[in-house]
């Protein structure tokens, strides 16, 4: 529960309000989909998924959007600045378990960041998987996370990459529309597909429904849920989601296990 002191090695702006921090954390290991608690001293602590390569040595990579006091303070940390860090916590994307299957990765907005470690690992073991599709939807072309890397994936790997935005000006020649529409364009065998989804909950709900309509069984669909995580070790109950505690039983969960809860308004 006690954070250790880590230091920012580098900071890069991704979009208008989103930054990626490289944090020296003593070689801390993690699995794709796991998160750390980042503590801005004197302000507060928030859960942030790791967005870097789980198999790469070096600093931990976290991508943070400045939406509140703590996240804003964290995104303002300059190289050399200290922050508290504890983790990693939570469940992980079933990357190894998906070997031999097609894999459909559906990301919405900042949701690409928690999925990126899974994509790195899928690409590192490309021959172990069938078709891989990465479908990414975001607000506008200016809000696309990791655009250069997406182009690298598109060019260099045997991966289907589709990006769509909710609205655009005329400079953008790609897709415009909701990310669920991309599912119909992707090539995969629904009976042998594992789907990984991360984004705003409403986007995940519609995406999971679209995947189900495309023939992917709910038990083969995984999503990353978010609630008000505080302790991150299943003690405080702040992140209770029905019978589950998301910090301990999630954040990555199987759709068939949470599907009934997603439409309970009180949760």
């Amino acid at each position, binding site marked *: 529960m006690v954070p250790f002191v880590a230091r920012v090695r580098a900071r890069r702006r991704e979009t208008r309000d989103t930054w990626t921090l490289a944090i020296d954390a003593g070689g801390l290991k993690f699995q794709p989909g796991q998160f750390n608690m980042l503590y801005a001293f004197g302000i507060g602590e928030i859960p942030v998924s790791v967005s870097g390569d789980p198999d790469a040595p070096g600093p931990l990579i976290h991508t943070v959007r400045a939406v509140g006091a703590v996240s804003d303070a964290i995104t303002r940390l300059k190289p050399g600045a200290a922050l508290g860090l504890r983790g990693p916590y939570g469940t992980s994307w079933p990357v190894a378990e998906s070997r031999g299957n097609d894999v459909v990765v559906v990301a919405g907005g900042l949701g690409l960041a928690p999925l990126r470690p899974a994509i790195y690992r899928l690409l590192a073991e490309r021959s172990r998987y069938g078709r891989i599709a990465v479908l990414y939807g975001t*607000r506008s072309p200016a809000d696309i996370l990791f655009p250069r890397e997406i182009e690298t994936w598109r060019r260099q790997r045997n991966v289907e990459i589709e990006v769509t935005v909710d609205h655009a000006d005329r400079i953008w020649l790609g897709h*415009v*529309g909701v990310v669920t529409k991309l599912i119909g364009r992707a090539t995969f065998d629904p009976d042998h597909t594992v789907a990984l989804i991360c984004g*705003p909950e409403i986007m995940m709900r519609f995406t999971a429904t679209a995947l189900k309509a495309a023939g992917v069984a709910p038990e083969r669909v995984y999503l990353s849920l978010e609630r008000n995580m505080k302790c991150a070790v299943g003690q405080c109950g702040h992140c209770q989601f029905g019978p589950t505690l998301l910090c301990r039983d999630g954040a990555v969960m199987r759709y068939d296990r949470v599907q009934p809860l997603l439409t309970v308004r009180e949760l």
Partner: protein
Amino acid sequence: MEVRGLDRLICEHPFFAGSAPEHCELIGGCARNVRFDAGQYLFREGEPADEFFLIRHGRVALEMMAPGRGPLRFLTVNAGEIVGESWLVPPYRWIFDAQALELTRAVSIDARCLRQKAEENHDFGYEMMKRFMAMLVERLHAAQLQMLDVYGSDA
């Protein structure tokens, strides 16, 4: 020969998948092949909506002009999809622009011709309405999601 070819194209288009051959023939009687180069408009806002398009190849952007902001793209339509629904209801005017983003090949359906056939053959008209209604509901749901701005900072 050309009409029979269009019947086939229409029946093979995903939007009309599973249609009765006689319905494809009826639609084919109102159809012609069209082609648009990149940058060319299929139609502009305010013009009479007297046709719609089954996209066979290419991609079309739907845009609206916003004062001070220029044209805003809100949907792209790809091969296998439909462009145009304003022909269904009066006053039969386009309410947005449609511009080809790349070389686009389509089947254009004459809306007056089709409306007339739907009036004369209500079974056919009902089948058409069911197909267009499904597409309209899907696009309405998508528009609702876009309007919610779920990826915004405060979402």
